[in-house]
């Protein structure tokens, strides 16, 4: 029988939530690494028991943990992230040059084909790869050195590389996104990169249509159509049908198009989910009503999904890596909040139930569908 395992990273530890395919009765394990900020946990698609986790702390820095039994036990792996060559500078908030400094790993993306290969998106914006199960890390420095790097400027949360999308049809193609540099793509396995931000319009930067400098919050892709990308930008929900070469806005009738999380239904490539957030200065839902918005038309037309979600006095946020979907027949949708709730919809968003209500602030949610 199928089951699901939800890997939850929070500000004070990691939690593993498991249930059978009905997704009604949940077992909660954790906290793992209690007291540490767990930015992201993700399992290998080819070996679901191989899970990688980013463990960080303002006191003790960055650690990488690896599990070979689905998150029951862990071992600390190599945590040495050294930029390739002389790192140079990017821009600081005030526009002055600032040396690249490794701060933390925001996102871990295991390879689609090899459980020992995993990518790490780090702050300050760079991409690292391990091909030995996180025993060593090498920077894929073609990204940082392709030319626009010295113009990258951090978003409010830092110069974080937070999104890594691996193309299931073309192993040489990888998409990444950085706040607030924008989206980038390689077509040669990471040797060379180019910005893919044409069509993005950001009024808060000096040139609203600049090649780089857009605060991309997250990008989602359906594996059956890796050329089609959906983006939640700082403001604006965007869509590309040509691998990021050009983007068009699909915010449509959303009550606000600011937000962080975005994801795609596991079986319907035109069904999207976002969580509208009031504004860049008020990071919570409008009027205290937590709503997931679903589009079944690839954007533009959105409907509010509210059944089971708090519709008064709710002022939580849903962060960029805190939404995920399972691939059971009735697609499950999951998201975690800064108020410590993790919600599950076992019916593609029609209705929601909290799995847990009182965790520390949720930083990331990833779901594994186990068969």
């Amino acid at each position, binding site marked *: 029988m199928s089951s699901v395992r939800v890997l939850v990273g929070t500000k004070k530890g990691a939690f593993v939530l498991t249930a059978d395919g009905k997704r009604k009765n949940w077992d909660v394990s954790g906290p793992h690494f209690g007291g540490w900020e767990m930015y992201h946990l993700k399992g290998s698609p080819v070996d679901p028991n191989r899970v990688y986790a980013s463990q960080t*702390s*303002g*006191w*003790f*820095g960055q*650690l990488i943990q690896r599990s070979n039994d689905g998150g029951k036990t862990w071992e600390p792996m190599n945590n*040495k992230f050294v930029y390739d060559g002389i790192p140079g500078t990017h821009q600081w908030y005030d526009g002055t040059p600032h040396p690249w400094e490794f701060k933390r790993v925001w996102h871990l993306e295991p390879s689609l084909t090899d459980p020992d290969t995993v990518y790490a998106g780090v702050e300050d914006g760079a991409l690292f790869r391990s091909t030995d199960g996180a025993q060593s890390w090498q920077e894929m420095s073609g990204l940082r050195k392709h030319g626009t790097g010295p113009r990258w400027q951090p978003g409010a949360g830092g110069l974080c590389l937070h999104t890594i999308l691996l193309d299931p049809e073309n192993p040489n193609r990888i998409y990444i996104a950085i706040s607030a540099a924008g989206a980038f793509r390689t077509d040669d396995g990471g040797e060379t990169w180019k910005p893919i931000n044409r069509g993005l319009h950001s009024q808060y930067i000096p040139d609203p249509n600049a090649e780089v400098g857009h605060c991309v919050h997250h990008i989602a892709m359906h594996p059956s159509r890796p050329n089609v990308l959906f983006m939640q930008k700082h403001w604006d929900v965007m869509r590309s049908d040509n691998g990021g070469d050009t983007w068009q806005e699909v915010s449509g009738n959303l009550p606000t198009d600011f937000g962080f999380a975005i994801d795609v239904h596991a079986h319907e490539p035109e069904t999207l989910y976002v969580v509208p957030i009031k504004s860049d200065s008020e990071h919570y839902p409008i009027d205290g009503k937590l709503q997931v918005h679903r589009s079944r038309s690839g954007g533009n037309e959105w409907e509010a999904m509210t059944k089971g979600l708090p519709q008064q006095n709710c002022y939580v946020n849903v962060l960029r890596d805190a939404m995920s979907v399972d691939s059971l027949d009735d697609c499950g949708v999951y998201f975690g909040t800064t108020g410590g709730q993790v919600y599950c919809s076992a019916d593609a968003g029609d209705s929601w139930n909290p799995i847990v209500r009182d965790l520390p602030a949720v930083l990331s949610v990833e779901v594994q569908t186990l068969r």
Partner: protein
Amino acid sequence: MTSTVRIELPAHLRTLASVGREVVVELEGTATLRAAIDALEVRYPMLRGTIRDQVTHQRRPFLRFFACQEDLSHDSPETPLPDAIVQGKEPLIVLGAIAGG
């Protein structure tokens, strides 16, 4: 010259290294702060990067080194440790700052 130095770790690093409040390291030659942390990282490699940067060896800003009621944090890492530390009478304390939420 060999010395046995006791090192007291903050709670999170004890958990990480699966050790108790104190660990003991053997040092060859002059017992300095650098030698003590070097030996600690050799014995407990999972602590690499948690106390000092792996490349520059700069102490992480929210950690301090205390010994014999003295703050050694700003001393040169090559400064010999106090006699009471070298003789094992007092521990070298790695202390986490009281900060954060």
